[in-house]
């Protein structure tokens, strides 16, 4: 079957989709967006977390056919998503509604996205969401497999809780497993992103 939906702000079409296929499979194997990670395939680990109509979900548990006509944001589109949100907030603060930027991230741009460099300079030159920058600065990435899911979940939490308590952070990230870090650096990263978000206002 064919599935039409919006990914990172742009309309996309996936063809030859098997009826029992997950959204995760469509993103990774049909649209070439491997940022959302395939790990447990049973909703335990959160590595495949994406926003579905704004709501964080495990993309491995969403049937492809269920996303017809709906809106998905993946980690590849997170930087642009966060940029537009910040712009929107600024517009609202200034009570002006003019939005000029072309919306979304194209598939080619999304596929080409990378946090440039493989050393401590990682992220320089690539556009990053504040939460992504905070993960790099706090050293919250070890093997990196859980990172995309954590970024999407943490970004969503900061959208609703500008000043999260540690309990808020733990609760929001309780569906994302990390087997390397022990979570302390991840907590640091989210606190850092929250603090920077507070300074920016």
């Amino acid at each position: 079957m064919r599935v039409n939906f919006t990914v990172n702000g742009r309309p996309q079409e996936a063809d030859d989709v098997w009826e029992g296929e997950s959204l995760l499979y469509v993103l990774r194997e049909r649209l070439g967006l491997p940022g959302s990670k395939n790990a447990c395939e049973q909703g335990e680990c959160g590595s495949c977390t994406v926003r579905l109509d704004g709501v964080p979900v495990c993309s491995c548990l969403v049937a492809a056919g269920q996303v017809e006509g709906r809106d998905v944001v993946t980690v590849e589109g997170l930087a642009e998503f966060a940029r537009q949100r910040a712009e929107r907030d600024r517009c609202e603060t200034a009570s002006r509604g003019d939005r000029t930027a072309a919306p979304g991230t194209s598939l080619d741009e999304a596929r080409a996205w990378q946090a440039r460099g493989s050393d401590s300079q990682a992220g320089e030159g690539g556009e990053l969401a504040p939460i992504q920058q905070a993960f790099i600065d706090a050293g919250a990435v070890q093997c990196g497999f859980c990172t995309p899911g954590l970024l999407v979940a943490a970004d969503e939490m900061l959208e609703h809780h500008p000043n999260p308590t540690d309990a808020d952070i733990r609760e929001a990230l309780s569906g994302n497993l990390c087997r390397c870090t022990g979570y302390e650096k991840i907590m640091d990263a989210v606190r850092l992103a929250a603090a920077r978000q507070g300074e920016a206002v």
Partner: protein
Amino acid sequence: MDFLRPASWEEALAAKAEHPTAVPIAGGTDVMVEINFDHRRPEYLLDLNRVGDLYEWEVGQDSVRLGASVPYSRIMESLRAELPGLALASHTVASPQIRNRGGVGGNLGTASPAGDAHPALLAAGAEVEAESVRGSRRIPIDAFYTGVKRNALAPDELIRAVHVKKADGPQQYSKVGTRNAMVIAVCAFGLALHPETRTVRTGIGSAAPTPVRARTAEEFLEAALEEDGFWDNGKIITPSVAKQFADLCAAACNPIDDVRGTARYRRHAVGVMARRTLTWTWESYRGARRASKGAA
């Protein structure tokens, strides 16, 4: 496999009548796991995501009509006052991602003895609104669970909503697991005090082939509360009453040994949860009584 995408409840009922083997999928948090692991290859998947009615709820005089697909996260946010037991149970479901997708309709459809909502529904008192092209009926929650992962639905029926009695007193929910998030219950316990009718109701999860009530324990506690005038005098529950209630709740279990725990552990844990939830709810009842007296 065929993917059926009804745009309305009427279309969904027609599709289920035409294809009774169709597997309904809403949040997908159970069904997709089975498909991903190749445990199940249904001939038809019946997607209910486009049926908007299923995501709505209405608060009535005596009960809440909760749409089958209302996600657990909405129950936690919006129905804490009306359905405190179910709201607490919802908060123990898996993770935020799962709570954003899963709802009570799926829990009922799957009818796993470990479903988190069941003890809360049993304790509060509820009816399942099932519908087919033949018509609609209300199945009392006590008659809904018929076996391990079996329920009272006919092959052509779908769950439209569940009607849960609004709380008229304190309710509690307790669940035993190895950690706070992402855990299937080793066992779970729900307790609701119903001061208006001077009754109590219980619900036990993961400790019998189906979710069950501890009826003997309920009858014992009702008699004990009545006999000594507890509802009126608001005294502290005597430890011997709490212990007897806990023992009777443990005796209502019919658990098995499995990877999550032994039968003996489950029986013990249900007794502990029964005693604790009784203390919590009763303290809260006494507090509310004192507050209303103080106001008067």
